[in-house]
């Protein structure tokens, strides 16, 4: 691993420890990513709070965000975040088959609504074909979502993808040494 996670006992900031505990309850991220970030406590607190808020809060279905998050991690080539699962999404009924379908040919999959398919295309297109995420694409999105929900989705996609790209390179040595 490029940067080793701190040991739990090395993290003494109570606010940071509370955020790490919230992450561990959700399962996304588990303790590894927060303990790497904990080397820069101010960053760790801001970034973990944003990860949690963007994933769990807001008005877009958490289960859909979880399917998108895993799709994004696969796009980013990050096995760490791709392997994590939200305990809350599981409790809400999200299963592994649906998660896998969100990274496959979801356009033809009857388990997703038209709105969910647009959100899945949004995530896939953002980093694979951003030139196709244009005014016409957003106009289509507004038939399914409010502007607030589209910003919620866009910010969620951007933030989680960015952290996955970071974790891909930080975690690279762990894979090599495994």
């Amino acid at each position: 691993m490029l940067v080793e996670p701190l040991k739990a006992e090395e993290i003494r900031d109570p606010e940071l420890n509370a955020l790490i505990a919230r992450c561990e309850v959700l399962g996304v991220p588990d303790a590894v990513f927060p303990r790497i970030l904990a080397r820069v406590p101010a960053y760790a607190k801001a970034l973990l709070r944003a990860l949690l808020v963007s994933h769990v809060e807001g008005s877009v279905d958490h289960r859909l965000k979880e399917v998108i998050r895993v799709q994004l991690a696969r796009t980013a080539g990050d096995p760490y975040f791709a392997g994590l699962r939200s305990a809350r999404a599981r409790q809400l009924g999200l299963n592994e088959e649906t998660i896998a379908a969100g990274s496959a040919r979801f356009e033809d999959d009857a388990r997703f609504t038209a709105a969910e398919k647009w959100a899945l295309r949004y995530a896939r297109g953002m980093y694979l074909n951003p030139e196709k995420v244009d005014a016409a694409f957003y106009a289509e999105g507004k038939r399914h979502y409010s502007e607030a929900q589209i910003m919620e989705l866009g910010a969620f996609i951007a933030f989680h993808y960015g952290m996955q790209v970071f974790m891909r390179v930080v975690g690279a040595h762990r894979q090599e040494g495994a």
Partner: protein
Amino acid sequence: MALDPDRIDAEFDGALRRHYSDEEIVELGAFIGFNIGYHTFFGTLDFYPMSSPDGRLVSQEESARVYGAKPASLEKTDARRTAEG
């Protein structure tokens, strides 16, 4: 990280550590990841700076003219640099 993450390997790691501590590597990596994610998102939203380079408040239409309505993507910029040698 943005264009060729596979090149951030053990050799790159060694070079990085000659200049930066673990704390600074985390700080840089998280900052870069955040910007990779958000700048692509912002690029799809078709918005421009509120001020011109000389500090005037300008409309979005004028700002698009000043800064360019279709900024080159990283890939296009990189391809052009490669072609230009």
